[in-house]
């Protein structure tokens, strides 16, 4: 019963909060520049959800609550949703569908390229989390979904590069990301090792 409430909370907050932020934006209650505010807010929201997603497995291990794992998929999907909102805000309200500008920004600005890469990873992971595809991918699903760690690192770089001067906030997020990486039970280098082993032996 308590678990059901937790599930509802995850859905309610992830969706309700997003709706609420848009309501505030359209009604001019997001400070002097609602456009920048909502871009930043949804960007950070996506990152928070991404971090929460990665926290689920270690938490369920520590608390010995395997049921918690069922929250991982919705959290990951909501992270992707907020990321899509973030990018849509940028394209709609900031660049206002000036396609030439969008194209040049996407290609020229390193922090945008990094963000785009992260977004693509999140989208691939979102699609391949369909139960049918999970089954079909079998073991490969695991390897593929380790890509979430790559997305996390990319988003932190994106954040770091997007600020004008030298700021504490992206550093803090970077540190939290490092902690999350270190919590991974099967370290990433193991995956690399396994991939190596899977390859046919080299013939001299």
């Amino acid at each position, binding site marked *: 019963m308590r678990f059901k409430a937790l599930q509802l909370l995850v859905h309610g907050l992830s969706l309700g909060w997003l709706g609420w*932020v*848009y*309501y*505030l*934006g*359209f*009604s*001019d*209650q*997001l*400070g*002097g*520049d*609602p*456009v*920048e*505010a*909502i871009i930043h*807010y949804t960007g950070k929201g996506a990152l928070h959800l991404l971090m929460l997603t990665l926290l689920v497995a270690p938490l369920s291990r520590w608390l010995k609550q395997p049921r918690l794992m069922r929250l991982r998929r919705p959290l990951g999907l909501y992270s992707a949703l907020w990321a899509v909102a973030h990018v849509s805000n940028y394209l*709609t*309200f*900031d*660049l*206002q569908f*000036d396609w030439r*500008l969008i194209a*040049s*920004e996407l290609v*020229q*600005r*390193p*922090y945008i390229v990094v963000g785009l890469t992260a977004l693509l990873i999140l989208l691939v992971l979102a699609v391949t989390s369909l139960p049918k595809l999970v089954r079909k991918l079998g073991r490969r699903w695991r390897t593929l979904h380790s890509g979430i760690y790559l997305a996390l690192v990319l988003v932190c770089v994106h954040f770091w*590069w997007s*600020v*004008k*001067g*030298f*700021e*504490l906030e992206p*550093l803090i997020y970077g540190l939290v990301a490092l902690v999350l990486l270190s919590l991974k039970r099967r370290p990433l280098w193991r995956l690399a090792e396994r991939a190596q082993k899977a390859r046919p032996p080299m013939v001299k």
Partner: protein
Amino acid sequence: MKRTDAFNSGLSENDITDESVFLNRRQLLRQLGFIGAGGLLASTSGHASAGLLDLLGITDTPAESGFSTEPLSFAAADRSPGQVLTTEDKVTGYNNFYEFGTDKADPRRHAQDMQVKPWTLTVGGEVNQPLTLDYDDLFRFELEERIYRLRCVEAWSMVIPWVGFPLAALLKRADPNSDARYVAFETLHDPENMAGQRNRFAGGGLDYPYVEGLRIDEAMHPLTLVAVGLYGKTLPPQNGAPVRLLVPWKYGFKSIKSVVSIRLVKEQPPTSWNLAAPREYGFYANVNPQVDHPRWSQASERRITRGGLGSDERIPTQLFNGYAEQVAHLYKDMDLKRAF
């Protein structure tokens, strides 16, 4: 009045968001279902739920201002119909003033305890007549209103009615000598009250005090303004109380706030953003759609006027922020791409 009109002439009707255009856009958005009933209701509901929002860190409530501004008397600028100024709330609630924090809502939140009385502004260096002005002296000049576009290097802009006097009027009193080739400006250094100066992280990694500079001919140009007011009143702290510079054809960071020192010097003076990131911010920092910031395009800008999401327009950025007619001659033999 005539005089002010001449200065405002750079501002034609096309340059400022026309109110009817603005209304049309809103209508369009509403038809698209972008602005729901909420958007309509909200204009009356105001900040009713501010307490909760503060808790969530989403909005900034306008400060219960510990700081009070005072009305000024001045020669008013001509406000032709159709000119859409950026609302006072946005002008005073969205500021880059890293001394009070790097978030643009920080200055209004954290600057309200700033003390501006007494204030001392010195004019020295290569001058025959060094000056020391106190707070009241700042308002003894012939004050006039100027409606200027302010173009931030971050590719947004506002249209703001300032009150002030030409910098030239001040400099002439100090009587620069023949060695005065540049002018160096400095912001108040008060780490005790300015968290950004106290803590390297809170201040965006800039070295403080904030410094800026102009070539003497730029400083003497009639568009270069010393502002002491905004929307008819003395400046609030977040906009650079009690006295700041405005160089409307340059990116906003040149328009240094809360100035305590003006020095006429022989050599090109150091400037804060140039010191912090020389590849990204030059000494000249003239608004130029052809010269991109290394991390974003400067070809267009988002004009912030009023309203919520979907009410701003992205407009092409103009060379020298649209003041080319008045200032282009200052740079006629220069490669603006290299001297950015």
